[in-house]
């Protein structure tokens, strides 16, 4: 996604029970994996079930005829990682600080009374907590940078997909309420799933969201809510109850957080469900 918050439909635990086997077998497409992974992150029982299926599926690689990789592949891998420096976690960050502190504390306390030793113990405890917190911070920073790299990779994949000729591209234009705004709906064939990419939209206050509406015979169906980033961009994964080609038009309005059952706020984007013909 393009830094905007993406609001994905929730999958119930009951639905997860059905979908975890296909997930473990790699039988979900790349976009369908995301809501499953989001659910697993938040739901311990489903995460446990997912692990069980994945453990079983992980025996399947052993079922194929085994081939030797090229002899020089290991060299290539090792050469490649040599050019990709990690930000290594310190092997034993706590002991070095601990040892330095302990040495000075030991020298200080050795000849003194037990009471002073107790004060020292409290100091040691406080220092240990500080060191653990420091280490946690380092881990968090490292994880954040890895997550960023992974997000970038996923963005590249999304855009690679969006540029394929088979992907339909329907355009939305800004209304008087947001004349500079624009958007594109992308989807394949008669899929019920698509992706809305928007830009040049105003960031909203915390109690408002943008909501996509899919219009069929004057009936409006919500396509999901989203917020844009500070540069006015966002990307929304859309699941429609019918193939997206069944809708005649679409629009985006401003609604209270959580979305509305029908449009209530000003419309900022609108467009017919007609193929995009390229830039003017």
């Amino acid at each position, binding site marked *: 996604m393009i830094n905007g918050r993406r609001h994905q439909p929730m999958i119930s635990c009951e639905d997860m029970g059905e979908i975890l086997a296909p997930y473990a077998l790699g039988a979900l497409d790349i976009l369908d994996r995301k809501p499953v992974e989001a659910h697993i992150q938040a739901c311990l029982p489903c995460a446990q079930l997912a692990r069980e299926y*994945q453990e079983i599926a992980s025996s399947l*690689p052993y079922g194929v005829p085994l081939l030797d990789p090229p002899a020089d592949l290991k060299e290539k891998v*090792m050469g490649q990682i040599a050019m990709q420096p990690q930000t290594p976690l310190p092997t034993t960050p706590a002991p070095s600080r601990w040892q330095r502190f302990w040495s000075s504390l030991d020298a200080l306390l050795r000849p003194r009374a037990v009471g002073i030793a107790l004060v020292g113990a409290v100091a040691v405890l406080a220092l240990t907590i500080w060191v653990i917190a420091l280490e946690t911070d380092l881990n968090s920073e490292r994880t954040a940078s890895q997550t960023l790299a992974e997000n970038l990779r996923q963005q590249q994949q999304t855009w690679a997909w969006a540029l394929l000729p088979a992907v339909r591209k329907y355009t939305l234009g800004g209304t008087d309420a947001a004349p500079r705004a624009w958007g594109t709906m992308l989807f394949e064939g008669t899929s019920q799933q698509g992706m809305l990419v928007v830009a040049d939209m105003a960031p909203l206050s915390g109690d408002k969201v943008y909501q996509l509406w899919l219009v069929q015979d004057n009936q409006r169906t919500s396509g999901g809510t989203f917020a844009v980033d500070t540069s006015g961009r966002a990307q929304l994964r859309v699941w429609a109850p019918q193939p997206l080609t069944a809708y005649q038009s679409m629009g985006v309005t401003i609604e209270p957080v959580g979305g509305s059952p029908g449009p209530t706020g000003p419309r900022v984007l609108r467009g017919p469900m007609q193929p995009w013909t390229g830039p003017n």
Partner: protein
Amino acid sequence: MEYTPLPDQDLVARIAQGDREALGLIYDRYARVIYSVSFRLLGDRGAAEEITQDVFLSLWLRAGTYQTDKGKFSTWLFSIAHNRAVDALRRRRREGTPTPIDTPDMERIAANGPDPAQQSAIMTDRRLVQQALVKLPDPQREVLVMAYYQGLTQVEIANRLSAPLGTVKTRMRLGLLKLKEMLKSINDEENRTQ
């Protein structure tokens, strides 16, 4: 330090610290399987090589995100590898790129691999999995093979079999559970006869 007997999770912890030797050992343990699965899915050596390289680079960069309490390391690694390979395969299909078919001259197992004990374990696992797959009911084996070894999505499988999507999902679930049962049963039987 003698690294070879170290379990996967210890080696991964070392990789997360920037230890290249540990990565080399994990490569020796799993590269062959990852390369073979990628080849099975993509049908050409160049692509299989690319996926294998990509997986180990990813491991190098993401080793710190592996959590031992969230499952076996090999499950985590194979899941990354399989997802990369099926994504590449589906990209090709969308682009209409034909899948090249490199026919392997023969199954080549390095008898003197870097870790003979590991190679022997891989061969044992392979035999067990093949026996278990053969014993699965046909409809369950069929969906497992189409999904895992052919990289088809559940929807594509349903279309090809002209079966409802729900039926395909159920067969996958039952197939995995049966596979687990079969693997345990074959393993127990072999242990009894040894």
